[in-house]
């Protein structure tokens, strides 16, 4: 098991999450600590490689910003949003001819 720590900011965000979301984060933290952590949806942050910074997607919650090294994992922040359209984006149904038909 790799030891995992939360920064103060990440801890506050964790404590503010509703119970189901907190459970999801906790489950992801357990996955990251386990030897099978390669199964976790980890994505190295471009520009953050030298600092071992990565994003870890948590289904239904958002993502964790982490520093992941061989010896330890630091959850630096919990960002509550998913890789999808922002909720404020308006969806408009258009016919196929309305797209790409400018010329």
């Amino acid at each position, binding site marked *: 098991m790799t*030891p*995992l*720590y*939360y*920064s*103060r*900011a*990440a*801890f*506050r965000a*964790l*404590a*503010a*999450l509703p119970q189901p979301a*907190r459970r999801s984060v*906790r489950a992801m*933290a357990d996955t990251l*600590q386990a030897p099978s952590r390669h199964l976790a949806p980890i*994505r190295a*942050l*471009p*520009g*953050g490689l030298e*600092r071992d*910074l990565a*994003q870890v997607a948590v289904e239904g919650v958002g*993502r964790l*910003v*982490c*520093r992941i090294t061989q010896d330890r994992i*630091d959850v*630096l*922040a919990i*960002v509550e*949003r998913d*890789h999808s*359209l*922002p909720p404020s984006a308006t969806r408009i149904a258009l016919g196929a001819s309305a*797209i*790409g038909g*400018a010329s």
Partner: protein
Amino acid sequence: MTADKPIQIIETPLGDAAFAAVPIETYRVMVRDLEAYRDLKTGVSELRALDAGEVVLPADVAHRIADGDNPVRVWREHRGHKAVALARMAGISPAYLSEIETGKKEGTFRTMAALARHLEISLDDLAPMADDQDADSLRRAGREAAFKAEIAGIRASIASGAFDSGAVRNAAARLERDMDAMVADGAEPSWASRLSAALTEIVALVDQAEQDIVETARNAQAELEEIISIDAFAIATKSSGRKSASAPTIADTEASASAPPKQIAGE
């Protein structure tokens, strides 16, 4: 961008670009890259805080406290202390510690500080999770306390023998800024307008005092100039200036020999 995945610009009737429509894959890549950029900034900033010595919470501690367990109990168990031992170290009874851990009592500031010290954590780590409203009222209370301290400082500075007009003026400016921040934060206590008027008055008094000092100095200088412009002083200055500048001439020697001695102020 390929020809089959164009960006479409939607213009207003006046021809100004109003919207850009991009294919959904492009949009998702843009959102992902933006999030990655923001996460990188957040991550680097948090790492700096950790490098500066900010404490991190082990996962088991964080999970238990976030789930509502009492922070004192969680940290005590994490550190491997028995309740009796921690109570003894903090100078309180085991019964009192038990009441704190079960939430029956809050614990005085001194007790919580002692517990935090022996648990090797900061007092913040033992604070119950404050909701946003609590955090706001705590921040406002902190600002009010800072106001009072600043006002006390101004009073002390004015009352002391070593009155420092610059310090008073700076303190007044700081108070004004703090007050603006408090109003921007949504709070405007009843005494705010009176304090603002009082600060204006204090700064005016400081300005007046400085003006008086300048006036006094000018008067003193004028008086000094008048003193040194009297004949006796002028002659003494001239004669001493010549002596030091060059050797006396015969005419000088004769003139000084024939002139009656004059009393010069101070001699």
